[in-house]
């Protein structure tokens, strides 16, 4: 059973079509990388898969569950790392993660585990607004994987992360995590390297969809012209 099955998905914003006629199928453990210029619909697609937006047309199935009807069954199994860290600036890293842990019914030990994994234990008791963007992003990664999701939805995950941090989070959200992943990316070469499946969006419509082995960085770069 495919982890993610999308057929002719459409999502409108007023009269504009943010997504239109998008279809794809992603096997468990595989990585889909979505390319496209700004405003092409990458973030919208991620948010639909995260159950935050309902599809206007077409069908979306995550782990066999149909959205939006069975969204409640999907929610705990998906982790989203978007543009916003989804954290409260006035609270500390530890307080933020504990809050999310309680929402997802996850124990406090896991919070400490993850703080350790992203090397934030030392500064876990300081309000987030005093931390640099890179550190906040690390805590955001921790938040995204806190509840042990099976599907990761990553919107340009390496933005704001220095190379050391990128290495740190690799086991959590990278290919070695073994999780099914959908990544929105702006980096044709780097994105292609970690993809199993590639989707190119332009103005909400699929411009290309192919296994990563059958496509080259040049074609992807063509999307942006």
């Amino acid at each position: 059973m495919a982890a993610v099955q999308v057929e002719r998905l459409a999502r409108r914003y007023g009269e504009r079509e943010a997504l239109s006629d998008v279809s794809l199928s992603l096997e468990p453990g595989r990585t889909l990388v979505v390319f496209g210029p700004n405003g092409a619909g990458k973030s919208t697609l991620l948010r639909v898969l995260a159950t935050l937006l309902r599809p206007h047309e077409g069908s979306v199935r995550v782990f066999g569950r149909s959205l939006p009807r069975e969204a409640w069954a999907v929610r705990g199994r998906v982790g989203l790392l978007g543009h916003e860290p989804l954290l409260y600036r006035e609270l500390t890293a530890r307080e933020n993660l504990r809050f999310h842990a309680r929402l997802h019914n996850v124990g406090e030990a896991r919070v400490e585990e993850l703080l350790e994994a992203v090397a934030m234990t030392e500064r876990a008791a300081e309000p987030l607004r005093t931390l640099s963007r890179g550190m906040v992003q690390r805590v955001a990664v921790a938040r995204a994987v806190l509840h042990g999701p099976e599907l990761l939805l990553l919107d340009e995950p390496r933005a704001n992360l220095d190379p050391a941090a990128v290495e740190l989070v690799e086991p959590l959200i990278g290919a070695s995590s073994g999780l099914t992943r959908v990544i929105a990316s702006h980096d044709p070469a780097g994105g292609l390297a970690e993809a199993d499946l590639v989707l190119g969006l332009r103005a909400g419509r699929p411009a290309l969809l192919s296994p990563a082995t059958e496509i080259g960085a040049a074609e992807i770069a063509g999307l942006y012209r």
Partner: protein
Amino acid sequence: MRRTVGALLRKELLVELRTLESVPGMTLFALTTFVVFHFALNRNSIDGDLAAGILWVTLLFAAILGVNRLFVADADQGGFDGFLLAPVDRSAMLVAKALTLLAYLIAFELVAVPAFALLLLGPPLGQALPGLLAVLLLGDLGVAAIGTLVAALTVRTRARDLLGPLLALPLLVPIVLGAARASSPLLSLGRPGALPARWLVTLGLYDLLFGLIAYALFDFLLED
């Protein structure tokens, strides 16, 4: 559900304690308003209808300040998404926010009501206190329910600080009406009158009705 509400409440109160955005502002506003009223009315002491009216209008406007800020942190810092991604009952947010607003109201009234008795009220409050507390509680419940619903409606709009009060005040008129009429005999010169039961019943029914409506409609405001 209870666990979720608990988690949300803890977060709310933590943020408020850190930022002190709502309660001190509401309290200070109420105190200043009492002083303004003294000068505007040119009276040293008030009682009866006038006292009830001034007390409730001031409490109401101070409450609006709290209502305006209720969802701002969540809207600005992506808190809705974080909550929406969790496998929890979404009405928990309504309950938690309403309880938070109720807590703010009780907290600031702990200072504002004695200040009112000190600064403006003529007759002593002693005997009337239990009755007044009952009215305050019923009024606060209504303000919490309606305030939370209106705050959720207006937080993600332009001019939210303006639309919030404009929407909330007409909806709160019956509460001010009931609460003021109920408090008025309690604040009268001479022996305080009896607590008019029918106003308490009206307040209670109104609170219940709008609590249920808010509960039914809240989910629709959260999704995108």
